[in-house]
């Protein structure tokens, strides 16, 4: 007999050891997320995937599914708070979408659209962050990093290289690169590495590929992120 729990009243089958997110995705239920990618060890840091499990807030991407759980995923309260968390990410970094090559294909933006977010609500930090364009094929724009660690995990778990890490405490956190100079060009990163292609935002970009898809044909121009995420479940996003 398969074990099940419920999300918003729908029965979800699961296997022992699966997280709520894994079981939900397999059952075709989208739970908003940014730091999660089914390829890698869950991280649990962006908090967008917060759902209510028997009334208590839990991160769906790390919380184990168990028999009979009653999970609320979509509610006015949860979605409004997810919007606020997304707005926090927007004011923390410098997200000038019109000048970003990732625009239209960016998961941060797409989650914002999905949540009906039209403004950033909070005061902006306008922190001074750098751009590292030293590498021949890949560039980092730190203004757009949301500290999801997907590049860190991809480099470690798939590429076996440890090119990236997140360093520092609190609001001073920064993405750092494993090379003596601290520059990407002196690291082991190759343009074909998984880590170079995994960033959900425009923080890590492949050079000379920008704006190649016309407006109207980009991933999220017409499709909601829920449909896109469910359809590409289990595949590497190379956007």
């Amino acid at each position, binding site marked *: 007999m398969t074990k099940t729990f419920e999300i918003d009243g729908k029965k979800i089958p699961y296997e022992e050891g699966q997280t709520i997110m894994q079981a939900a995705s397999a059952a075709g239920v989208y739970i908003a997320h940014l730091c999660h990618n089914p390829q890698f060890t869950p991280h649990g840091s962006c908090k967008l995937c917060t759902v209510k499990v028997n009334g208590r807030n839990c991160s769906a991407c790390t919380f184990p599914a168990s028999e009979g759980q009653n999970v609320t995923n979509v509610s006015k309260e949860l979605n409004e708070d997810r919007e606020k968390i997304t707005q926090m990410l927007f004011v923390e970094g*410098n997200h000038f979408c019109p000048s970003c090559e990732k625009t239209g294909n960016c998961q941060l*933006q797409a989650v914002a659209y999905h949540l009906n977010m039209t*403004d950033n609500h909070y005061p902006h930090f306008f922190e001074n962050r750098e751009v590292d364009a030293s590498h021949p094929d890949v560039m980092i724009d730190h203004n757009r990093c949301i500290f999801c660690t997907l590049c860190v995990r991809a480099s470690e778990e798939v590429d076996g290289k440890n090119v990236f890490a997140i360093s520092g405490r609190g609001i001073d956190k920064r993405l750092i690169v494993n090379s003596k100079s601290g520059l990407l060009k002196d690291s082991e990163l190759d343009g074909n590495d998984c880590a170079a292609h995994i960033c959900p935002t425009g923080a890590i970009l492949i050079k000379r590929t920008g704006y190649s898809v016309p407006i109207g044909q980009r991933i999220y121009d017409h499709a909601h992120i829920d449909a896109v995420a469910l359809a590409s479940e289990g595949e590497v996003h190379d956007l």
Partner: protein
Amino acid sequence: MTSKKVKVATVSLAGCFGCHMSFLDLDERLVDLVEHVQFDRSPLTDIEHCSDDCDIGLIEGGVCNSENVHVLREFRKNCKILVAVGACAINGGLPAMRNHISLEDCLNEAYMDGIGIENPQIPNDIELPLLLDKVYPLHEVVKIDYFLPGCPPSADVFWAFLTDLLAGREPELPYELIHFD
């Protein structure tokens, strides 16, 4: 029908007039619009100051200097509903990309040490508005009621928003009209 027309004022602060151009893309829908709407202070009219009973203020661009602050305050004071229009109004946009350079460096580069500058001097005419240390989004300076994202928001965005508002509905943009670029 003689019901009073809705008064709309518009202005561009630290913006590029792109949002206004996009507004004009309403084309023939503008004809329908002016049935219900009367333009007050706006680059589209010659009115220099808002009358005190404007219904809707549409503001393009962020706040980069003291004059922007005064104009924004005039709008807030005279418009019942204030709308931040476009990326620059919402998060400072392209002009705010100067925010990570100190104003001192910006001014020096532009007027003192830049290549090809003759007679270097920081302009100091008292008629000129002074620059703020940063370019600020509108909502950090006055209270904003609605936001129309986009760079620029398409004519459809203006249309959807204004027709909702005119019909007395809570404005809501469909998925395809919410975009930040």
